[in-house]
Structure formats: structure tokens, C-alpha cells
């Protein structure tokens, strides 16, 4: 009988893991290479505030809002809140490679724009072992201007980035870069070489806007990649703020599935956490009482 109980318990483990993790791109609950669980784990340790309603952000003065990989439309109210937040003297860092973030940029009156596309470069850092070819979308961008976020950072290693237009260029690709429009990982005659901005800064009101054309640098795969001291330093600068807000209402990083919202809610309050512990304890006590265990 004991064996039966153990088997039943063991069968629940993969079920639990399945329900409490996510495979969604950029999800903070995704522990795989394309998730951001490591980055968010660090943010939580630092006491970052996860924002689920943008209306409340103007109430955090001298703070920094991270808007990573947005994937849904912003309401007028949301845009108004972000505009008030930035023009009020705060900092917004937008990392996006799809162009969804352009709605925010337009909404807050910034001139900087994200140019979606498959930016590629001959300055790369990954070599595809299967095809034996280089990965031109693993772009090495050089820091061109000293800033709070680029201090002592020489290069930023990007992963399938887009380009940024406008603003003050803080990092850009080399001359031998191109928009790989047909995705063949080669330079074609209709894909001219040129330098592309990938990280830019713009003053908006009393605040500062940073636009990074690649949210992939926050993923686990990139964070765990050895030898990326520059990226590590850059991410440290990004996280280093007196008050750090991280949007979860419009970002892919907030995507969850299965029991994640329930478990997250359960763990979010002490009362719920204690209640869960009590239920599990009672169950175990019952099993002992019935001499099942």
C-alpha cells in the first residue's frame, strides 16, 4: 500500500512541474533558454515591483520602468500613465524587436522608433554547429557613447535584434550589417550593408527614454552564456535603480499558464501560503492516522 501511495505521489511531480512552469517566450515562469526566469529571479531578490496596472506607476518617483517585449495594445489610459511617468522625471527602458513598442514611443511623444526586421551582421558571436555556418543574427553591437547604462560596457551582444531609428545612439552595429529581409542569413544584392543603431536614448520631458531593439538579452539562454561580461555589466546597470518597476500587464514576461496564476496568487500572501501548508499537513496527518503511511 505504501508503494501505491509513493507511486501516486511520484506521478504528481511531473504534473506539478508541468502546471507550474511555462514555455511561453520571454515568460518569467519559463525556466528554459527562451524564458526570463533567471533575470526575474534576480529582480525579485532586489525587490523590484511587478506592475500589473500601469495606472499606478506615476506614484513611484525617481524610479525606472522596464517594459520588456510588449505584445499587446496599450489603452489611452496606459499611454497617458506612461507619458506622465516619463515626463515626470522617471526613466523608461523599452526593449522590443517587434515594433509593438512603437505605440508607446508615439504615445509619449518620443521621436525614437523601433524598426522591426532581421538585423544581421558580420560581427557575430555564434556559430551554428549543425549547419556549419555563422549566425549573422547574433549581432555584436559596439557602444558608441558613455551613459549611465553603458558605463564600461564596450559591446552588447544581441540575439535577433531589430534596429532603432532616432534618439542619441548609444550602441550600433558595424558597417558590415544588413537587414536580412529574406532570412537566408546571407547578404543579397537588395540588402545593402550599413550601420544600424540598436540602443538609443532620448529625453522626454524631464525623464529619459531608452530604447533597446532586442529583449532577447534578458533571456536565460543569453544570461547563462559564458564570456558575456559586457552583457552582464549592461544588465547590472539596467537593474541598478533605486526603485525598479517591471511591467507585467503588456509584456510577454508576464505570460503564464496552467496553475501558475493560482500558485503565484497563493504565494503572494502569507495567509494563503499558511493555508496551503495547513491543508497539506492535515492531509499527511490523516494518512498517518489511517495507517496509510
Amino acid at each position, binding site marked *: 500500500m505504501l508503494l501505491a501511495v509513493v507511486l501516486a505521489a511520484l506521478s504528481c511531480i511531473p504534473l506539478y512541474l508541468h502546471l507550474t512552469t511555462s514555455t511561453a517566450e520571454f515568460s518569467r515562469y519559463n525556466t528554459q533558454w527562451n524564458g526570463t526566469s533567471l533575470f526575474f529571479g534576480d529582480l525579485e531578490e532586489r525587490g523590484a515591483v511587478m506592475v500589473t496596472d500601469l495606472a499606478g506607476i506615476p506614484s513611484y518617483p525617481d524610479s525606472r520602468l522596464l517594459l520588456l517585449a510588449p505584445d499587446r495594445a496599450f489603452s489611452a489610459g496606459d499611454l497617458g500613465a506612461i507619458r506622465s511617468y516619463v515626463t515626470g522625471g522617471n526613466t523608461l527602458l523599452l526593449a522590443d524587436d517587434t515594433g509593438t513598442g512603437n505605440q508607446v514611443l508615439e504615445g509619449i511623444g518620443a521621436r525614437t522608433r523601433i524598426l522591426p526586421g532581421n538585423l544581421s551582421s558580420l560581427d557575430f558571436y555564434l556559430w551554428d554547429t549543425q549547419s556549419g555556418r555563422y549566425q549573422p543574427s547574433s549581432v555584436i553591437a559596439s557602444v558608441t557613447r558613455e551613459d549611465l547604462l553603458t558605463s564600461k560596457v564596450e559591446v552588447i551582444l544581441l540575439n535577433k535584434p531589430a534596429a532603432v531609428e532616432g534618439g542619441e545612439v548609444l550602441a550600433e552595429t558595424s558597417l558590415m550589417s544588413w537587414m536580412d529581409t529574406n532570412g537566408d542569413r546571407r547578404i543579397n544584392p537588395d540588402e545593402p550593408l550599413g550601420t544600424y543603431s540598436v540602443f538609443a536614448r532620448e529625453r522626454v520631458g524631464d525623464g529619459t527614454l531608452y530604447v533597446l531593439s532586442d529583449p532577447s538579452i534578458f533571456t536565460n*539562454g543569453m544570461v547563462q552564456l559564458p564570456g558575456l561580461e559586457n552583457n552582464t555589466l549592461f544588465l547590472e546597470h539596467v537593474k541598478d535603480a533605486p526603485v525598479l518597476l517591471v511591467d507585467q500587464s503588456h509584456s510577454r514576461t508576464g505570460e503564464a499558464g496552467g496553475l501558475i496564476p493560482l500558485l503565484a496568487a497563493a504565494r503572494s500572501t502569507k495567509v494563503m501560503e499558511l493555508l496551503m501548508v495547513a491543508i497539506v499537513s492535515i492531509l499527511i496527518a490523516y494518512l498517518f492516522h489511517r495507517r496509510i503511511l
Partner: protein
Amino acid sequence: MTRRILLPLMFVCATVVGLFIGVNFASPELYVPQNHSSSQYHVNPQYSEITSWQSSRDLMEIMSALMDDTGSVVVKIREKDFETAEREYRRLVGQGHNFENIVVDLELSETEMGEFNRYNQRNQELIRRLLDDSKRFEELKSLEVRYRDEKNPSALYSVTYEGEGLKTQIQEVTRQYDQQAPAFTLLGQQFSLNTTGYLQSVSEVESLAQEAGATQETRKAEADTLKRTSPVTAMPASVDSVTLEVQPDQATFGDTLRLTAWLTGRFPGEQTVDVYLDSQRWASGRSDATGRFQYDLLVDRVRAERHVLYAAHEGVYSPLVNVTIVPTDAALSLEVRQLAERNVSVSGTLTAAGLPVPGAEVNIYLDNIRVMNTLTGGDGVYRAFLPLQAGMYTFRTASSDSTFPLRAAESPPLTLTVSGRAGAQSVITTIMIYATFLILFSMGAVVYYRHQRGGGGPFEFRNPFAFLKLPRRKEIPARTPPEPAAAAPPPSEEASPPPPTAEEAATTPDRSREFVLAQYRQLIIGGDHPNAVQGLYLFLRDQLARKYRIRDHRSFTPRELWRLTNNKTCFGDFTKFIHLYETVRYGGAALSPEESESLVRWFEGTSSAVESDSD
């Protein structure tokens, strides 16, 4: 209670887990790095090899060096410092190879970098020619001084003629160098390269050509002067003059140039005549008795440009003749086919004017990437073999060998799907494995079924592992020799002889009832009642099975067999027999003499009834 809770609980758990597995069952995808090598937003860095390669920096450095070094080599040539020029040229070639390697590795052949590479290769080729011609032209200067001092107009003329050929070559190189300079400069400027050194080299090359022209004019004038002022004895005795005629004066690949030279003098017949093209001896032969020399030359490996020809015999030179070789179109065919083990053969023929072009370089492109170059054979056929992974490829070949008077030729592209034979093999192997498993499983099921049912029928069970069984320690007791008719016992499920004599006797159909009864009595006397009664039972079982065609009778219990005789004439005696048999066999009871006789009576009654039954 516990069981009532736990079993449904386990069932629910298993169902839920099964449902989650079932969701993915329709499209199973096991985790392999390839499945997760990239997504719409990023590539998996853990699946790729990290290589910090800032190619643009390397490429820019090399491109810059190539432009600068080209200029310095030309400057050294102009300064007549040929040793340094040679050294600088070797360095230039080395840089060129590095650049080409990067271009090939990064698949940039069809990009601006590829174009830069092609211009650079052409530049290096022209500089090589310029270096060689200039060096020889400079050597002629010292010869010129020597022959002038020796007052040898004949030798001085040879120098003059060779110098003329070299001058023409230098001017031709200059023309070609100038011709591609604007495009190459523009390309360099696109990459923000400093083109000053290269532009300087262009003007240096022009100056070099002008210098060569001026030197040659002076040389010719001095040779003429020396000829006029020198004594007649200095002239060769046998031949006074040589003239050369070349028809036509313009030709293309495959044409024939007819070279006709006339020797005049005291003994012009059967003399050796050499014909020079651009100062290089191109043809040689002997004149006929009248001093006429004729030679037909096929135009094949000659550059498409203006050339200088002259004929010579022992220091007597003909006037210079100009011939222009013009480029013509070439045709390049392509055939691609897959050989065994993913090896692909790429072949074709390079022809021009209906003739094969031998020894020409052909580049092979795979998906627009140059992967290999090869040479055509004597019949104009080129052939190469490429090991390729399974997949679809587009092949193309091109030839632009500038040592032939041919325009660049390109084959039409061909697409080939390389099949993964290894993959097919693995599918076949997989099918065979599954088929073998299925067959073994079926065989096992049949064997098990037969074994369970006790054998019989066409697939009577034989223990396939019987040979592994160790012989029993207990030897078979001696018994009465079998009758001749019973010499061949039927197959038994046991490889070793069964221990009880009664059983063997009973299970042998040909044994007589008397024999079985004799065995029975012997065992009864010996006190082995269970085996004694079993012998009788087994005899009856087999007799019943034969008579009433009962299949798998060995798997029946005595009761089951008894039920089958329900409507038979033997039923009465057999009922009593079975009852007593079970008492002794399974109940362990010993037979009294009366019971023993009764059993024999019922046995005989049953056996006789079966025998006499007409059913």
C-alpha cells in the same frame, strides 16, 4: 476503506497524467537541441558554438591593407627596387588569400566584399605581370649598354625588339589597371577605406608605362644609329633580313593565325626561325629551301588584348607586327547527379566557337556560394565531386579565366535533391526491428498459448530450451523392453524420459492395455499407488482423446475429461474410476486390494466401452 480511496486516487492521477501525455501524443516531439535551436525572437545560444568574431574589423583591416599595399608594390616597381617589390607583392598575395578565405567562410562571394575580392585578385594578377615585365625591361637596359659598347647592332636590335614587346605589355597592363581603378576606388570608398595609396598606384603605373615608352623610343633610335654607323661585317653572313606576316591581324579563340616569315640573304634556306609573341618565343621551325617559313597557330590560351609579334633568326629581327586577340563567348554546360552515399558529381564542358577549352578554371557554386574550383581537361570537360548532406541544392558553375580570350561563361542553374540514403536505411532498419519484434512476439504468444493448452494439433508444443536442461539425477528404472511396434514414441513435451514408468506406458498409444495393467500391478506391489493409478488414467485419457478427437486433452483435468464423456457409454465406469482415482491421486489414500481390483474393473470397463463405441 483505504483501498477504496487509494485505488480511485491512483486511477485519477494516472488518467490526468495520461491526458497530459496524450495531448502531445498526436505530435510527439522529443527534446533535442535542433527542436529548440531558434524561435521567432531569438536563436538558442546554448545550441551554437560561441565564437567572438568581429569580422568587420578583420575585413576592414585587410581591405585597407590590400589597397595600401597595392600602392606600395607599384611604387617599388617604379623605383626599380624589385627585391622589395617582390617581397611586398608576396605579402599582398598573402593578405589576398586571407581576405578570400574570410569571404568564402562567410559566404560573401556575391556581395560587395566578393566584388572587392575579385577586383583585388585581378589587380594582383596585373601587378604580377607588371613586376615581371618591368624587371625584364630593366635587365634589357644593362644588355643594351653592353651591346652598344660592343658595337653589336644585331644584339642591340634583339634587345630593342624584346623591349618593344615588353613596352606593349606594360602599356596593356596599364590600360587594364586604369580600367578597373574607378570601380575599385568607389568600392573602397563605400567601406570608408583610405584609397589614397591605391590611387597613387594608378598614377605610378601610368608613369611607368610612359617611362617604358620613352626608354623604348630612345633604344630604337640608338639601335638604328648603331646599325647605320657599324661596319657591314657585323651583320650575319647567311641571312640579311627577316620579314614576318601574320594573317589575320585580328583573331579570336579557335581561329588560326598563319605566320609567314621570309629569310633573305646568301643562305636563307633551311634556317631556324623563331616567332615571338610579347617577347616570349611562341613558335619555332625551319625555313624551306627558298627561306620561307610558315606556321599555323591555333589561338587558345592567349589573353584578349593587343599583342606584338616578330620573327628572328640568329640576331636578325623582323619588323614588329601587331595582332589583336578579341574575346569571344563561351558556353558552359552543367550536369549534376547523385552518386552513392551522398556524393554528388558535378560535371560539364566548356566550349567556345564549337571547340573545347582545355585547362580553364571553372568555379562551382552551391546555393550561390563558391565551394570549389577545378580545371577542364583536354576535352574541355570538368568534373568534381562534392560530399553533401541530404537536402535540396542549387548548383551553378562559372568560368572567367582571363588567360583565355573568352568572355565569362556561366552554366544554367540546376537543382538537385540529395536523398539521405542513410536515413532510408535507418527507416528500413527500424521497420525490420519492429517486424522482428512483432514476429517474435507472435511466436511467443503462440508458444505460450500451446503450452497453456497442453499442445496437440499441428503446433504441438516442444520446449525450445529443452537442450539446456540438465539430465535428471534419477535414472529411468529398468523396465520391460518395448514391443517392436512401440519403438518410436511420439514427441513429448519433456525432452527427458518421464520418471514414472506407468506414465510413459500409458501415454504411448501403441502400448496394450495388458501392458499398462501389468505396470499398474507392479507399482501397486511396490506401494506406489498414486503413480499406479495415474498410469491407468493416462491410458484412458489418451484413448478417449483418440476416440472422440479431443484436442488439447493434456490440458484437461480428470473432471473436465469426465464431463466430456457425459453422453458416452463409458460414462458409468469412468465416473467411478475418476472418483477413486482422485481419492488416491490427490487425496493421498492408499488402495485396498478390493479397491484396486474395482479400479481395474472400472478401467477395463471404460476402455472396452470406448473401444466398442461406434461414435
